[in-house]
């Protein structure tokens, strides 16, 4: 029982810290790229900014409009949050530092990450606002479309590694000597990152939110702590999907040439460094790219990413059987 409590506590702390680190990275990246002085100089060089942000949202009134469907409206952020936090359970920081090394780890991650769509849809519907409803449908359409390439891109890795356990996949990459991204899964990696960016609803795939033009889509009626949950879930999702991408494609907690017997010591540092590098790329993309139009966004998923990921699976399977 104590072990379970420790693990749950670890999950919550890891998820929140991951989100906060990525929030800092995002605003600092923005201020660095766009010369915004705030997050670079104010308050311990901008590092206490997330604390101020959280305090601000907690202080704000949690407004619930009178016409909304109260229980559904109140619980909608929880689905999104749960789907993000649960993902942290399967990512290994080192061979032993993992909450649950499931035999079907990859499958678990994909299944759980699909739960967030329900939160988005019910949030849009229960707000009793046509713009929110349209925003929810727009967001769900995007999440459904990009979930397929995300899953299909991972299949290539699973075929190559012959296991669905995330620890097993990393061990296989150590055995191979090079990470899968070098060893034949470069297309899979690119598809995974594009689809993951769309799942996080970040620029250039932020059509569901559209801060200034579409007034936050399905989140229009949310304020205070419930809005904060949606907001922080985005960063949790960003952190965890980057960590999963590092584990599946970039060799996880190990880099070539480092001695494997010390992996328990340097593992977490290596994994977090890889995650941060991927996160930095996402930040750089966010603050330099325009947004996709809705039809371009759907075309990219259905006409380019899904066929490409199917071809990737076919080629990987042929290589696996043939060589």
């Amino acid at each position: 029982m104590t072990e379970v409590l420790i693990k749950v506590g670890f999950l919550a702390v890891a998820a929140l810290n991951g989100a906060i680190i990525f929030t800092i990275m995002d605003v600092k990246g923005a201020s660095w790229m766009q010369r915004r002085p705030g997050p670079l100089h104010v308050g311990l060089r901008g590092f206490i900014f997330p604390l101020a942000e959280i305090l601000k949202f907690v202080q704000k009134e949690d407004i619930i409009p009178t016409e909304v469907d109260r229980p559904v409206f109140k619980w909608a952020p929880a689905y999104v949050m749960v789907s993000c936090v649960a993902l942290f359970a399967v990512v290994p920081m080192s061979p032993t530092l993992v909450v649950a090394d499931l035999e079907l780890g990859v499958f678990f991650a994909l299944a759980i990450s699909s739960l967030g769509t329900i939160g988005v849809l019910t949030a849009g519907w229960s707000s009793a606002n046509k713009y929110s409803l349209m925003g929810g449908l727009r967001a769900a359409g995007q999440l459904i479309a990009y979930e397929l390439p995300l899953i299909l891109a991972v299949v290539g890795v699973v075929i190559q590694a012959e296991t669905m356990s995330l620890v097993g996949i990393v061990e296989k990459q150590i055995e191979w000597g090079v990470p899968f991204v070098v060893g034949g899964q470069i297309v899979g990696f690119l598809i995974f990152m594009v689809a993951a960016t769309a799942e996080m609803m970040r620029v250039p795939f932020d059509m569901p939110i559209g801060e200034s033009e579409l007034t936050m889509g399905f989140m229009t009626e949310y304020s205070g702590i419930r809005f904060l949950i949606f907001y922080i879930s985005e960063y949790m999702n960003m952190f965890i999907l980057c960590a999963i991408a590092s584990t599946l494609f970039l060799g996880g907690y190990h880099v070539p040439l480092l001695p494997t017997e010390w992996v328990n010591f340097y593992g977490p540092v290596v994994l977090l460094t890889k995650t941060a590098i991927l996160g930095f790329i996402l930040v750089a993309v966010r603050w330099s790219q325009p947004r996709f139009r809705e039809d371009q966004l759907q075309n990219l998923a259905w006409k380019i990413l899904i066929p490409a990921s199917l071809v990737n699976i076919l080629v990987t399977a042929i290589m696996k059987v043939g060589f």
Partner: protein
Amino acid sequence: MEIFEIVTYFVLLLLVSTAVRVVTTSNVIHAAISLVFTLALTSVLFLLLSTEFVALVLVLVYIGAVIVLFLFGIMITRAPLGKNAELDNDKNKKLGAAIAGSIFFLFSYILVNGFDGEVIITSGSSTELLGEILLSRFVFPFELVSFVLLAALIGGITLARKDEALIDEDQV
């Protein structure tokens, strides 16, 4: 009673209550959300029976895809907030309860008599075993099912497609 049994009965009780709520609520979105919980609890039940693969398929396919498409379809057409009188079909309640009860007894009878105490999986992981059986002994039905799905896919595309020849040019 062991803790495992207590958990199982607790999950079963919750499962029945959410399942009843799916058919008694008079708001279609509430019904769909109750169905999410019903499926999630069914998945927990499969986890307790240590068949992780089936449990996760239930989450990925039914909650992640089927229910989401349900919600999507309902919201894109008509989903009013509050109670919907059309969904209160009181006169058929007794008939529905009778049919549901008889199906329950029929299935329980078949399951209890067919697999009375028989342990099917004795060693190894259930997922590996499932994969091997699916692609050796049951490979023909497995391929047949994928063929049926392909037919459904093509049928769906045919229905949704805009046929250029059929569109009246004046209307476009």
